[in-house]
């Protein structure tokens, strides 16, 4: 794992020099081809120390749920039926038979569990909580510690919150931890749902059928992803596949199983059914989809796709003001999804997340969704000195982020400066929403 990170770091530094940084990374570590399914070990690493005299006083957090099963029971069953049918018709190659046997072991363990948090995911959140209390022990020790946590209504988010808070409670049994999961939290925690009053029906979700980028993505897939060689490796006669299924669908199903194997819940190596090129092609397709959905795309859209996250960010700023003023809360934790983090990184103009690609082909080189892996999280740590000055430092997956804000002590920024910058960006996002139209109701 460490090797992968060194490579990624190198790739980022020499982005201009390397032709295909993502491909190389994936070649060295196939699991990265899983994109947002990537399970990072979030290895603890030393953090830049706070400036002298400053002590941590408050944490504001947004964490994606931990590792989960792939989120479609229908796909689990479709792959099962497809392979059963092929086996019955004696239409599988030896490699296909191997896939059939491996999947037959996996299927009973994963069926009906689409979207659930796995044990791997539970332990990820225990780990993040563990590192949080160990990094900022004084914030969580004592008799008057209070933590507020909220989660979306997704089962995996609630369970992530439970795992996280359980570890916190172990650290200090007298800690008061208040948790809530409710539709009342949804607008803020997932500002791409109808609970956000700014949103229109055709803006909703991650892959709304009205989204403007579908035709472009389909054209890209048609050009870049060729499922035929894969199908020929698995089926003796791909044309005899179960009716309604295609080579393209089969590749998609197997890619999803391969990508989520690292998330736990079942065993086996499913990457072996895809060549490196196929894995990379599927990665690029998926990566492009996420980039278009919530990333800094300017080729097809005008920013409306990420701008809704302002609703979350403004609430975070308001919460921060209130919590800093009262001093009652040690940490405010929020449990949600990747899309909120991805869009927030663009909203806050974060280095490494704010550059737009000049072509679809370029996207994978400058933006990779495996950097928002399972359990990805934003942590804003607030520090105060004796004079009452407040600094903030933001981390993505426990590594410091840089912002275009003037500071002698970067990655520590004055809270007033950071706040002003964030509000400016929030206004900018609102302006985008006011000057762009929701996608038309015609299905793309």
């Amino acid at each position: 794992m460490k090797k992968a990170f060194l490579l990624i770091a190198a790739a980022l530094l020499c982005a201009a020099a390397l032709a295909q940084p993502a491909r190389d990374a994936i070649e060295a570590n196939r699991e990265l081809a899983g994109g947002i399914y990537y399970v990072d070990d979030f290895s603890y690493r030393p953090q830049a120390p706070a400036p002298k005299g400053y002590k941590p006083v408050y944490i504001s957090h947004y964490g994606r749920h931990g590792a989960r099963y792939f989120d479609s029971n229908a796909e689990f069953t479709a792959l099962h039926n497809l392979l059963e049918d092929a086996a019955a018709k004696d239409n599988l190659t030896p490699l296909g038979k191997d896939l059939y046997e491996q999947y037959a072991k996996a299927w009973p363990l994963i069926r009906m569990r689409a979207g659930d948090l796995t044990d791997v995911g539970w332990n990820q959140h225990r780990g993040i909580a563990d590192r949080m209390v160990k990094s900022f022990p004084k914030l969580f020790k004592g008799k008057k510690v209070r933590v507020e946590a909220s989660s979306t209504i997704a089962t995996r988010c609630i369970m992530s919150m439970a795992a996280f808070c359980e570890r916190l409670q172990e650290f200090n049994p007298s800690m008061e931890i208040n948790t809530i999961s409710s539709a009342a939290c949804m607008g803020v925690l997932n500002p791409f749902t109808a609970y956000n009053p700014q949103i229109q029906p055709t803006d909703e979700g991650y892959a709304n059928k009205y989204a403007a980028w579908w035709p472009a993505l389909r054209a890209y897939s048609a050009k870049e992803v060729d499922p035929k060689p894969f199908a020929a490796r698995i089926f003796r006669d791909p044309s005899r596949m179960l009716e309604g299924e295609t080579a393209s669908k089969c590749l998609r199903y197997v890619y999803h199983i391969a990508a989520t194997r690292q998330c736990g819940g079942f065993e086996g190596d499913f990457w072996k059914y895809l060549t490196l090129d196929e894995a990379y092609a599927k990665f690029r397709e998926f990566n492009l989809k996420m980039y278009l959905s919530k990333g800094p795309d300017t080729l097809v859209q005008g920013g409306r796709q990420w701008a809704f996250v302002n609703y979350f960010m403004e609430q975070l700023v308001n919460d921060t003001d209130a919590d800093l003023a009262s001093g009652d809360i040690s940490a405010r934790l929020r449990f949600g999804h990747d899309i909120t983090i991805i869009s927030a990184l663009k909203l806050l103009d974060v280095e490494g997340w704010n550059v737009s690609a000049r072509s679809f082909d370029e996207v994978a080189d400058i933006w990779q969704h495996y950097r928002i892996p399972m359990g990805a999280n934003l942590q804003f740590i607030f520090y105060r000195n004796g004079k009452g000055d407040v600094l903030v430092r933001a981390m993505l997956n426990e590594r410091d982020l840089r912002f275009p804000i003037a500071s002698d002590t970067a990655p520590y920024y004055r809270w007033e400066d950071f706040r002003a910058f964030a509000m400016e960006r929030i206004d900018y996002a609102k302006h985008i929403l006011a000057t762009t139209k929701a996608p038309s109701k015609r299905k793309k």
Partner: protein
Amino acid sequence: MKRILFIIAFLVSVQPLLADGAYDEIRADVNKAGGVLYVDDFSNRDLTPAPKGYQPFYISAYIRHGSRFLIHEEDYAIIKKALSKGHKAGILTPKGEDFRRRFEAFLPTVENRAGDLAPRGQRQHKALAAMIYNDYKPVFKGKDVFVDAHSTHVGRAIMSMNAFFSGLKACNKSIQSHQNASMANLDWINPHMAEAEINRPFDQTLRHNDGPWYPEFRKFCEGKLHTQAFLESLFNGPAPVKDAIRFERSVFEVASNMQDMETEESFWDLFDPDEIAALWECENLRFFMLKGRYPLNYTRNWKISWPILDNFLTKADEDLASGKVNARLRFGHDGCMMTLLCLMGAKGWCEEHPDFNTVKETWHSWNIPMAANLVLAFYRNKKGGDILVKFTLNGKNLTLPLEAVEGPYYRWDDFRSYYRDVTEDARAFIESCGPDGRPYILSGRVSCDGKPLEGVKVSDGVNIVKTDADGRYAMFSDKRQGFVFVIQPSGYVPLSADGIKPEFYARLNSDVTAPEVHDFRLRAENQDTYTMLMTTDAHLTNADFKPDQQAFREIARPNILLQAEKAREKGPVYSVELGDLAHELYWKQFDYNLRDAYRTFTEGYPTLLYCVSGNHDNDGGVRTANTDRDAEWLFREVIGPEYYAMEIGGDHWIMLDDVIYRNSKTKKKLNPGIVGDRSYDKGLTQGEMAWLIKYLEPLADDSRIKLCLHVPILAEEKETGTYFRKSQADSLQSLFARFGKVEVFCGHVHKTLFTEDERYPVFEQHALPALSGNMWTLSPVVTMGEDGGLGAVYVGTFSGGESSFELHSHEQGQKWLRIYDMNTVRSYFSKSAELKALREKNHEIPDYTDPKYANCIWVNYWYWHPGDIVEILENGRALKVEKITEMDPLFDVNYNLNGHHKNIPGRRIYSAKARTRTGKVLVRIRNREGEIVYEEALKRPKAFSPVMQ
């Protein structure tokens, strides 16, 4: 089981004075009226000590989530809307205005919180964990404790589980645990949810308002509640609510839920204490109906919880063997706890209540309050011996149908083996149901000579199923039509004890949910060519003013026997009778009803006989909430199902009831035994139409369809062209269109009528003349009908899709028309003083003596088919033929001389004026293809007499 129920019933019956027990409990603690919304602190636990030397070492539990917000935003919306409207209109009482103010203040606290676990619920679970920890300390103490927990995927269950563990770990921080939340757990934590794999569409029907329970529930509410008084306490004048009971129950629901919220506010003061108890009783009944032994859920609702019980047993075996799990927890919901307890035969949860008013004596919804918990605790003795179990609900001992060892302690082996059987029985039942979850109520076997027949259709008048390779059929049925019948397939006929009544149906008993088995035996018959004798409107009445009994026996029956004998040469012969076998007006008056008529009609009948019901086959002495069905009682008793079908020789014969009997109130003087005007609508009921659509659905477009019904569909004299409502006629046209052509055989009109209508091109309608002519009232030609035609038997011969028909009058052979030499008619009428006097009484009756009729030839061609052309030639030269509306003179004589003075215009009378008095006349009929189908030479003068041919 039976013995236990008897004991329980006995116990219930000796406690009549405690019938108010539930109401007393509510008076003592109004929050109990909240039922499943009740907040119980569980301080009233039995905590019966274990037998000496025994300690708990493992627990398996099912725990409901804690206090929650209401599940449906709609409850708040209904109240808000009504109060807001009332306020705007200024019709709220002071109490209503006060409620509105308090309600509006409360609303923001529940916005977007529907279904959430409430903060109180989290606290409850933390406290419950500590309570269970202390009650079963030996299980949870120490360093090596592992607790395995699963919840459904529903947020409040997951959050309850999380809160429980935070409470448990506060008691012993070394406890290891594994928490899992998933939809995959549903089958064995909450099988009632639609997402559970075991759950079927029928299970959803059983718990929603489209289920069979709902009408009875509403009726109970209407009887119990004082909704009007409640509305009047809040509104001056008519309350602005769509559904008053729903509104009151919504307010009650909100009031019940206040105890789960963080507020001190209470809305109990809106209700009278007695009304609170009544509202609880209704909601309690609802839970009983959905979760207990209420017959109309077919036992499926509680047997579906078998996987929960199975999980308890199977996992206990696993955990006891491995020793690795100290406690196994399931976090779920209220309904499944009730059905689990019902399945387990726990006292208070398994009783039947035919009288809804007694439900409250045993079933108390507040016993499944927030954070309700079922704990199966396992005990062992260091010195060895049996493992014992204790099963408690909220810490209170449950009485199970097992022999205990001591107090509430049972031998685990006994518990396990007893409930393994219970589980397997329930599972077998659930798995025996159809794919949509409905159990098979009707089943049986269709056979011929002992051999099974596959692919034969069997129906209950709602569903249609096919027999399998073993000749077996099985279907769900709510028995609403009261019959199960086989649709005889081509090449087979049902057995018949008397050779007349085909045994194609069985009557169902009135126990709607009880399964029944009915076999059908058929015999083979070659139907390559077969004949159908068709009669209608026999109108047998035994009246004293007409000779129907004698005329039927001496005139009509011999014709039927003759036709049957002739047709037998070609192949098998069957009969259909198209209704009005008797006449309800006279059932009581002449003590002769449909049963008597059927007996008379079928004396020595020569073939199998299939009947449909006519309007006069209904009982005019019946008017109920369901007149159409209830008035049919005698037809159903004597003859059988009102609608059904047969497949004969590759043809589909569909027998329908197209009379919707109303029998409305009337001020007119009524005959004895009659309570209404005997009115009826013409058409098919919704249920019958739905069955017809189902029957036709799988048929190929080239299927041959024949409809038999009493009232015709098409009516020439009506502007719409139909007797049926235009919309239904249009629907039938659309439904049948793809089959190209459908022959319709009907009666009712007492005339021979062949009708086609380009607006309804699929129907080729044959209206048959009445067997009885004009109901046997004419004289001397007793069987003459209103159109001047004669009572007859219609003989259809069918062979491989080809149909051919003959109309055989009783005494004059195949008679299509009658030719009149108007010269002799004129002479006859001018000589009759009687007929002259008749004309004086009614000037509309034609004056047949009028000179204009001299030399005219009239042809009454009742057998006219669409497109037929009547030619009248004199000495070989074609005369100009015109259609006239004068009444048939022979009919005039046979009808009006018997006390009537009516002018019945002729329908198919053609006239031509001959040039001579005696020249040879030829009447010729050509069909629409131009072929000559009939020729008759007329030698004039042709005599006119009352009995002429």
